[in-house]
């Protein structure tokens, strides 16, 4: 009841002042913003020409002086495997074969994703990402404007058919995604994460951010892409489930 009262009040104020109505008229729809983003990175046709990617990157925690190497293999429609290695954490291997999300780490061994973590793995491992947003997004809403690193951006809340909602910040000038607010589902609980995207570069006709700054749990992590190889040949069996994961699934 309280929410309804508030909504009525806001509408009434808008009618009287006329300000809110004009603002809404100039605020692009979420559909328009997402479509503009797809065009900004090169368009659907360019994206369709890429079927696999191999990415080498370095992930750093600058304040703590930590650094780790990251290797990622992805393929249509939704297969992925990532290996992170460092002296601090050992080896962390994660994958998604289209159905099963999993990880194997030096410290905690094998684990199969379940529940919300699996749902988010489904959301995050689509090769095309937002390029094909109409296929997997249940609802998209513009949530006003915000500054990101001093530049105006539009906020778009994207609710997928499967997985939790995320808020994208699209630069008003370039239409590119400059920030993402999301939640990492971990065995330790939900952790709010902010990601800042920059240094977009053209890779086979598709613009990709080559620097990603993450803020989570009070720490800053910076990923810098060292190489992106589109349409790379993926080693046979690269997306197969590891034996430890197969053994876990067999026990269920």
């Amino acid at each position, binding site marked *: 009841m309280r929410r309804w009262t508030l909504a009525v009040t806001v509408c009434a104020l808008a009618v009287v002042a006329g300000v809110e109505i004009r603002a809404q008229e100039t605020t692009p729809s979420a559909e328009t913003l997402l479509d503009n983003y797809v065009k900004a990175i090169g368009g659907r046709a360019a994206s369709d020409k890429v079927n696999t990617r191999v990415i080498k990157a370095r992930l750093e925690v600058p*304040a703590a002086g930590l650094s780790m190497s990251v290797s990622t293999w992805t393929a249509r429609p939704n297969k992925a495997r990532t290996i992170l290695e460092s002296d601090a*954490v050992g080896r962390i291997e994660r994958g998604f074969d289209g159905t099963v999300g999993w990880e194997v780490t030096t410290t905690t061994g094998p684990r199969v994703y379940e529940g919300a973590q699996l749902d988010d793995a489904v959301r995050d491992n689509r090769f095309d990402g937002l390029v094909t947003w109409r296929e997997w997004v249940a609802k998209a809403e513009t949530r006003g404007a915000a500054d990101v690193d001093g530049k105006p951006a539009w906020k778009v809340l994207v609710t997928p058919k499967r997985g939790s909602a995320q808020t994208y910040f699209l630069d008003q000038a370039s239409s590119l995604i400059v920030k993402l607010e999301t939640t990492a589902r971990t065995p330790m609980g939900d952790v709010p994460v902010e990601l800042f995207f920059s240094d977009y570069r053209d890779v086979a006709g598709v613009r990709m951010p080559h620097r990603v700054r993450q803020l989570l749990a009070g720490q800053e992590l910076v990923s810098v892409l060292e190489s992106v190889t589109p349409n790379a040949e993926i080693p046979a069996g690269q997306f197969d489930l590891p034996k430890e994961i197969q053994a876990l699934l067999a*026990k269920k």
Partner: protein
Amino acid sequence: MKRAALFVLAVLACGLLSGAGVTAQKPTGLSAERRAEHLAAFDQIWTTVRDRHWDPTLNGVDWERARRELRPRVEAAATDGDARAAMNALVDRLGQTHFSVIPGDVFELLGDGSTPFSGDAGIRVRVLDRRAIVSAVVDGSPAARAGVRAGWEIVRVGDTDVRPRLERLVNELPETLLKRADLATAVESRLKGRVGESIRLECDTGDGPGRALIIPFEVPQGVRTTIGNLPPVWVRTDTRELPDGTGYFALSSFINPVYVMDEFGKAIERFRDSPGLVIDLRGNEGGTFNIVMGMLGWLVADRGRQVGTVVQRNLTLKIVVQPRPAPYGGRVAVLVDGLSMSASEVLVATLQDTGRARVFGSRTAGAVLGATIERLPNGDRFQYAFADYVSVTGRRLEGYGVVPDVAVDLRRDALIKGHDPVIDAAVEWIQQRRK
């Protein structure tokens, strides 16, 4: 992440035992540029604690007042040491572990063999009845080759008579949980030196004539590990079968997950059918939390069971068990003492709370906070805590430590006879449970 704090402790303690400040500097004046670096470092420390300490009240400390009172000391500092002392005075007001400023120059050189603490004789010491007693000798170390044995009393190091100085320390150090660590470190820091140099020791063997030995300093035993801004750490494990068939695994620190988890995994498989497993964390200085989680997964089978909470400023994380496919099912005894710190205390508390292990030894150090180490504008490093740990039963460990289920102290007479009373008590319990 306690190692850096321990290192600072070692420097200070060495000064106490020798009667001289090892980091003493002549006032030479600081350049305007250097002074600005120190002020920037002070400001970074002040701001970091204000923004990142898990407790917004900063443990009740008037932080603005602390800045007003201590920043002028940095501005007026005549030496790097003076400036650093003011910064340490700032974080000392919090009255918590895991806050310290580590001199950058010493930090940079720690691992190259040229600093006073880079070489090790291989002697581990505990202060028992106001005497510096060798509690263990590291296998393969210079001390082991020289014939040093557990139970010996170190009565003279170089030109220093240990007994009177130790007596003074025992009387003067405040009665805190960290006192046992301070005392042991005061002696052990005198048994470290530059690689290639040596130390002359005089020992009371307890069961025969005294011994005088010259022991060289060598690169410490273990796997040298450098992670981020941490100083180099030599990680040691010791896996062996005790005479009755019980497995034994000792770990010096929770650093280097690849090495530690591999060694622990092999120990689990080796002793899977043994009467039980003794995990020795005495003297374990802590390390990274992910290794705690990993070892827990080998020992506790309840997937998803919450065993503790990590509290940050705006975030609370559950610590839950992620068991291995085939966790260890046998009896587990864990050994601790006053030098068991940080991550090791979390593992012990968790195993104790879940009833998975019985804890033997003496109360732990109560130095349990989630911490990190950052580089400061003046080149020093700043270790600070940003998270508190609360066990699933609601107990804080910082300042309290873990009280063993079975209190057992080391005894010199037993060590001389080749016995370790704490291990003996754990093995006896495992054998009783077996019967």
